[in-house]
């Protein structure tokens, strides 16, 4: 982008956002500091870390896991992570014979409250379309090759219902603390495009 003078320039899109925000501030509907706090919360604080702690708790505490699978929203709330979106959540458990993948083929509904903001590819049309039609092919592109006998289940989110995948607990993690376990839970493992990190496999 070039400027023909030494003055400032805002793109049309930036002008639209600025205009909307300043009108809302003038009307007393929006507090700029509150907007910054939201951006900060979703960009840095929530991230996928809340979700990772939920998964780590489920791996370590069978009673919590049972609660989580029966009533995900209440179980997640019980850890202090409330969903501001007011939607129901369902946790899908991966097992040696079933692998779950989540997608929103219509737009990109995503459990922000526990996973932070969605990655760009999740919002892309190719992912949305192909995850439904060819989930094994998509998983392969993410580097996840599933044995033919593993059933792949694709879950299409709606505005009222969001999904989180409960990945399998990696082998060799007996005796790990919840904190250590949470480190193994990647964002993608809760979307279903990869498994939780294997602590014995080194970095990859």
């Amino acid at each position, binding site marked *: 982008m070039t*400027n023909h*003078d*030494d*003055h*400032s*320039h*805002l793109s049309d*899109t*930036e*002008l*639209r*956002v*600025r*205009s*909307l*925000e*300043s*009108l*809302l501030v003038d*009307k007393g*509907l*929006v507090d700029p500091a*509150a*907007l*910054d706090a*939201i*951006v900060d919360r*979703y*960009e840095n604080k929530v991230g*996928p870390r809340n979700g990772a702690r939920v998964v780590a708790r489920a791996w370590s505490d069978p009673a919590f896991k049972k609660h989580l699978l029966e009533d995900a929203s209440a179980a997640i709330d019980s850890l202090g992570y409330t969903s*501001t*979106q*007011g*939607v129901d959540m369902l946790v899908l458990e991966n097992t040696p014979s079933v692998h779950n993948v989540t997608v929103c083929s*219509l*737009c*990109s*509904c995503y459990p922000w409250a526990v996973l*932070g*903001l969605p*990655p*760009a*590819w*999740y*919002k*892309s*049309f*190719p*992912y949305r*379309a*192909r995850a439904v*039609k060819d989930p094994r092919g*998509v998983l392969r*592109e*993410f*580097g996840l090759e599933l044995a033919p006998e593993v059933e792949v289940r694709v879950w299409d989110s709606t*505005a*009222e219902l969001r999904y989180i995948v409960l990945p399998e607990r990696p082998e060799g993690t007996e005796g790990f603390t919840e904190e250590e376990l949470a480190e193994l839970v990647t*964002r*993608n493992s809760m979307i279903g495009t990869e498994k939780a990190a294997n602590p014995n496999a080194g970095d990859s």
Partner: protein
Amino acid sequence: MAANTPTIDELPSLPRDEDGPVFREPWEAQAFAITLTLHEQGHFTWPEWAERLAAEITAAQAGGDPDLGDTYYLHWLKALEGIVASKDIVSPDEMVDRKAAWDRAAHATPHGEPIVLR
């Protein structure tokens, strides 16, 4: 429609690690935060919002947008402008006037200084 869509491998900026950018530009995060704030204040429900956003995305696709994720927040912004207009929160006329004011302010501001409305 799906026949012409690139595969995930052909997406130039596909983040495969934990640190993939979630907002490509600050305005995307601002638009997101404005929407969440208005929703939290009860101006619209989340399903209502999701429906409007989906309609914008569907319309963009019908208009030829390959929809690779990079235009996502443009659709988001359009949906946001639409919902505040339909709820009589901010009218299109107000937006036109305010945009012109910001544009003038930007041009009157030496490069590198914060742009403020006077």
